[in-house]
């Protein structure tokens, strides 16, 4: 076990620091979070800057235009950018983390040439059309139907919770290409690249509990997608999707986690300013210990992240550490939100009112933390997976 960075890794970090010192002052102020066009522009401008400097697709292989960085370098990249509060991956998340890697692993040369350079430069924003009203945790029961018509698929159905649908250029879409109820439900699914300009797509934004429209319902009415936009074989889309998941190298929550470590320090600062029973809240040993507990858990999760990254670097596949991370992280973040709210008391009745100098408002963060147990696989499903696939318990 060795937590020291190598000389090469330190050199990578120094070079990155130098670049960030010159690049960050050129970044425009962060736009209002309800102004989606501006948000898209802000995130994609940053992506273009990264591409010019050779940092786009940090973990992508070099033959596909990426940096080919090791997981440790990826970690350094996320650490440094978060430390200096550089823009987050934002709307480029699905393209860089999901669609791009899938196209790298399973796409044809033509598909790779069409999309990968644009994703890397922030010229193509992607969204993920997996979930449906009737298919959430049980994703493989999805019903959105694609019927072959010559060299096109004609697609009808409904998707839901599609993040960034209203500003995306492309959608990674899971459709049912074989409706035969006799075959196993995982077998009849295909993975398509759908242009969001296609006629027949109706997007209806859904307001989240934050009052913003992060995600949307997507109604598809005879949308035509060329067969050449299918990635992988027909009816083999489930496997294609699983291949993508195996790209995760333990870095998914690094920026967020480091941000959380700042939030807990700010909670401690806040506690020193708030009056409680004629003293400060920090003088209340109960509160202080709770904050210490949260900070300790975040420290341990940072250590766990390094274990996960190291394991991925050695084996090339994600271990169960990612599932474990997500379970505990969601709990810790809820606890942090609750403690912050107790400190703010009625000063926390408005979002963005607290004068916090953090990147994120503690009350907004408390609400956001609710999603950590739902998005990308719920806590319960995650526990089923750990129980069955990691611990070998029998299926229910």
């Amino acid at each position, binding site marked *: 076990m060795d937590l020291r960075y190598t000389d090469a890794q330190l050199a990578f970090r120094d070079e990155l620091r130098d670049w960030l010192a010159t690049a960050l002052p050129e970044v425009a102020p962060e736009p209002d979070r309800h102004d989606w066009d501006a948000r898209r522009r802000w995130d994609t401008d940053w992506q273009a800057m990264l591409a010019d400097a050779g940092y786009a697709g940090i973990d992508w292989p070099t033959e596909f235009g990426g940096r080919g960085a090791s997981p440790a370098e990826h970690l350094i990249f996320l650490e440094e950018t978060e430390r200096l509060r550089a823009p987050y991956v934002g709307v480029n998340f699905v393209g860089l983390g999901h669609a791009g890697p899938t196209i790298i692993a399973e796409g044809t040369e033509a598909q790779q040439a069409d999309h990968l350079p644009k994703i890397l430069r922030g010229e193509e924003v992607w969204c993920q059309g997996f979930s449906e009203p009737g298919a959430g945790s049980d994703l493989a029961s999805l019903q959105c139907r694609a019927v072959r018509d010559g060299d096109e698929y004609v697609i009808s159905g409904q998707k839901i919770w599609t993040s960034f649908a209203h500003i995306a250029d492309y959608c990674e879409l899971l459709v049912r290409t074989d409706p035969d109820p006799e075959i196993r439900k995982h077998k009849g699914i295909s993975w398509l690249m759908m242009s969001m300009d296609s006629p027949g797509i109706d997007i209806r934004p859904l307001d989240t509990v934050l009052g913003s429209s992060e995600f949307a319902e997507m109604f598809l009415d005879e949308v035509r997608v060329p067969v050449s936009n299918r990635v992988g074989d027909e009816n083999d889309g489930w496997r294609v999707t699983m291949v993508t998941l195996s790209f995760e190298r333990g870095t998914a929550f690094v920026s967020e986690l480091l941000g959380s470590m700042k939030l807990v320090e700010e909670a401690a600062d806040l506690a020193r300013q708030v009056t409680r029973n004629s003293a400060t809240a920090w003088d209340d040993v109960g509160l202080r210990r709770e904050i210490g507990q949260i900070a300790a858990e975040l*420290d341990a999760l940072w250590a766990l992240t390094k274990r996960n990254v190291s394991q991925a670097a050695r084996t090339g596949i994600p271990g169960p550490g990612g599932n474990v991370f997500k379970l*505990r992280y969601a709990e810790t973040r809820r606890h942090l939100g609750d403690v912050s709210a107790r400190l703010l008391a009625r000063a926390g009745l408005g979002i963005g009112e607290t004068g916090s100098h953090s990147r994120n408002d503690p009350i907004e963060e408390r609400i956001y933390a609710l999603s950590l147990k739902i998005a990308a696989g719920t806590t319960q499903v995650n526990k*089923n997976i*750990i129980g069955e696939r990691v611990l070998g318990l029998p299926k229910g």
Partner: protein
Amino acid sequence: MDFELSDDQAALAEGIRNLCQGRFDIETIRGFAESGGVDPGRWKELGDTGVFGLMATEADGGLGMGLADAVLVFEELGRAAVPGPLVGTFLAASAVPAALAGDHVVSLVEHTADNAAGPWMVEHLDAAASVAVLGAESVSLIPAADLAGEALPHPLDVLTPVSRVQSLADGQEIGGPEVAADWRHRGSVLTAALQLGLAEASLELGVAYAKEREQFNKPIGTFQAIKHLCADMLTHVEVARAAVYAAGVHFDQPDTGDAVRAASVAKLLAGQAGDFCGKACTQIHGGMGYTWEVDVHLFLKRSWVLDTVFGDADDHTEAVAAFL
């Protein structure tokens, strides 16, 4: 950066695990209750294997390894629920050659401002040759024979006999403030490693029972309430493992993180893991979990005993908060 075990470390952990399976299986250990929790012959085997001298210098007859290595060894000792004052003897080994060799059992008692007047609860007094007194500013060694103790008739953990000692005889000082701080630091991390191992023992036992026990014509592990308890145990174990290993590495490689803060994080989360997993494993066993026969109570009670040394959850949450 590579936070996975090196080949040498993996071999070290496996070696100790094999030793424990062969020489400290749970039936054998239960038998130690007759001899005050320590069997001199088996204790000597630990010394011969180098367990107590892992971090002592080669000049002192040790192996010159790091705390991260020692953590792996103590994790295995915890998993096997090996009883005895392992941490005290380990810490004393640099100063007491016979302790390093496994010929001299050293119990440890903390002498803090809170219990300056005693009485002191000394573990394994009958088996010990010396008692190390860890004070705020010094460490001293007292021959166990010089201490009068009244054995508790019903110790919390049958394998950790405890004596109430009313006064501590004068001892021989073997270290000043720096040594005391070092003992507290490494003692926290090694105790955390024992608790990590105990948590794993509960996890393994609980999962095995969930696969084997049937009710309503199916293994109880089929039921989500049980399955999710198992997943929660694994989560506790893996988060604690990361914390404990990090505490070991930060001690050996001080540039990589604050080792003192990491020691508190490790002791806190490993104690919580030992407690959570012990309770969950008890619950998974139903009525069997409440019997003397099933081993889980040994794991849980040992973890509770270890909560009381080198700082408990209250101390370590405070200690971490002080860094903010």
